[in-house]
């Protein structure tokens, strides 16, 4: 597969790994946060940590849009789905997220009509084909996905499809990163920036991180070599005493983002004054809602939504995991009460959640795994002469 396979080349990975080791100052520990759930997934899926020295730690951030949805919003969505003549449509990831009273999957089994779609356009198609039903699209995601939802709303408006609406749970990345930077618990050396969000917002929004907080950020692609190269670039910056925003994913990310995408979002949506993020609490101007002009396509206006705030279960420590303060295995209920089969929190449900990634892919002692797979440690230390 072009533009994929060449960025998974093991030989190049070994070379990068050697350079990374060479760049590490003896005795110094490095902590880089990869903001994006997609990065978390790639790291575990390909066993990327085998290529990093012990002194480099990748911390998982809050960039998993499913993970940050509070339980109350899941309940709201289910309440909409349970109304007569409603077809609720959603991405696959949402199906097993537990609300206060069960998940979409449970609601579907109990008689609600909830269908999985790959694209919001598929949802629109269902609306076209079912004029007597009210079709709702569960819109989740960061700025990567918001333009697609926006374009779909614009299409719905153009076609006069009044039976189509969205339940908007789009969130924005910068406030989440700000919350991390303002958190006293974390001492990070740099950021691996969210590559696909950046195709929309570009790289400029991250300037404040380098300028005001003195931390380098490298906007990274999603193949294993992309992430390794980004770590390499971060280490070079640190070695040279720089803190800048760099674009490793330049084959896809334009520095100024995608103006048409931003225009579509701006036309159909506006920032909410505040929004609750699971684990991070209320953050102002961090989420999107549908504009008045498109009210007929706003599920929150069309339906009566309970809007009850549901507190996370006491045992759940998703918040700290999302902030990178706790590693998945440090959560008290990880692997015992909270497993992919019986998830308590969202980090364990979403395939991009740190806990799910760690549980499914990485949970065994790396040494024992390496022994069993008979792979020598690919991190070769090039000795200093």
């Amino acid at each position, binding site marked *: *597969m*072009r*533009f*994929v396979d*060449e*960025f998974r*080349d093991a*030989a*190049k990975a*070994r*070379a*990068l790994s*050697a*350079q990374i080791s060479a760049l590490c100052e003896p005795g110094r520990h490095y902590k880089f946060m990869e*903001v*994006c*759930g*997609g*990065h978390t997934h790639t790291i575990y899926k390909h066993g990327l940590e085998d290529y990093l020295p012990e002194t480099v730690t990748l911390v998982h951030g809050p*960039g*998993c*849009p499913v993970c940050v949805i509070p339980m109350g919003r899941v309940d709201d969505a289910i309440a909409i789905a349970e109304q007569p003549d409603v077809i609720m449509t959603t*991405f696959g990831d949402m199906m097993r997220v537990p609300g206060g009273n069960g998940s979409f999957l449970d609601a579907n089994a109990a008689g609600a009509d909830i269908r999985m779609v*790959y*694209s*919001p*356009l*598929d949802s629109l198609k269902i609306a076209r084909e079912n004029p007597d039903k009210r079709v709702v699209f569960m819109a989740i*995601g*960061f700025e*990567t*996905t918001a*333009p*697609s939802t926006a*374009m779909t709303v614009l299409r719905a408006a153009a076609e006069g499809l009044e039976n189509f609406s969205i339940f908007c749970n789009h969130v924005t990345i910068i406030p989440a990163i700000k919350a991390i930077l303002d958190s006293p618990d974390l001492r990070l050396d740099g950021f691996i920036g*969210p*590559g*696909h*969000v950046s*195709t*929309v917002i570009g790289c400029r929004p991250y300037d404040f991180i380098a300028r005001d907080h003195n931390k380098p950020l490298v906007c990274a692609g*999603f193949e294993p*070599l992309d992430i390794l*190269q980004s770590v*390499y670039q971060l280490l070079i910056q640190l070695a040279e005493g720089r803190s800048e925003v760099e674009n*490793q994913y*330049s*084959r*896809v*990310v*334009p520095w100024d983002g*995608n103006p*048409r*995408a931003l225009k*579509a979002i701006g036309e159909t949506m506006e920032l909410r004054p505040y929004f609750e993020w699971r684990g991070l609490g209320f953050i102002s101007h961090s989420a999107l809602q549908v504009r008045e002009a498109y009210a007929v396509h706003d599920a929150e206006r069309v339906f009566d939504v309970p809007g009850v705030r549901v507190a996370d279960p006491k045992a759940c420590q998703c918040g700290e995991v999302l902030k990178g303060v706790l590693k998945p295995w440090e959560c008290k209920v990880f692997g015992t009460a909270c497993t992919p089969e019986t998830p308590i929190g969202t980090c364990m449900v979403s395939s*991009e959640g740190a806990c799910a990634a760690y549980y499914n892919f990485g949970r065994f002692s790396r040494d024992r795994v390496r022994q069993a797979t008979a792979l020598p440690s690919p991190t*070769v230390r*090039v*000795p200093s002469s």
Partner: protein
Amino acid sequence: MCLGIPGEVVEILVDRPDLAMVDVSGVKRAINIGLLDKGEVGPGDWVLIHVGFAMSKIDEEEAKAAMEFLEGIGQAYEEEMAALLESRIE
């Protein structure tokens, strides 16, 4: 954070110019190219696909540059390793 996959544009649909048929490893799907500028992509171009939309045209020059950088690192590594081995022989 979101699943984006590269695909090759096969054709722009005649009756719906905001749609393109895209091929990902032999699997085809119609993708909305409304987020790209008019005429920005045509058959043979590659785009990044996310939930049924093309988000960006893949810049083949930049991809080539990225590969060259990685190859360069690989080269440096091999030279270093070769030097390492040589020095041991002495």
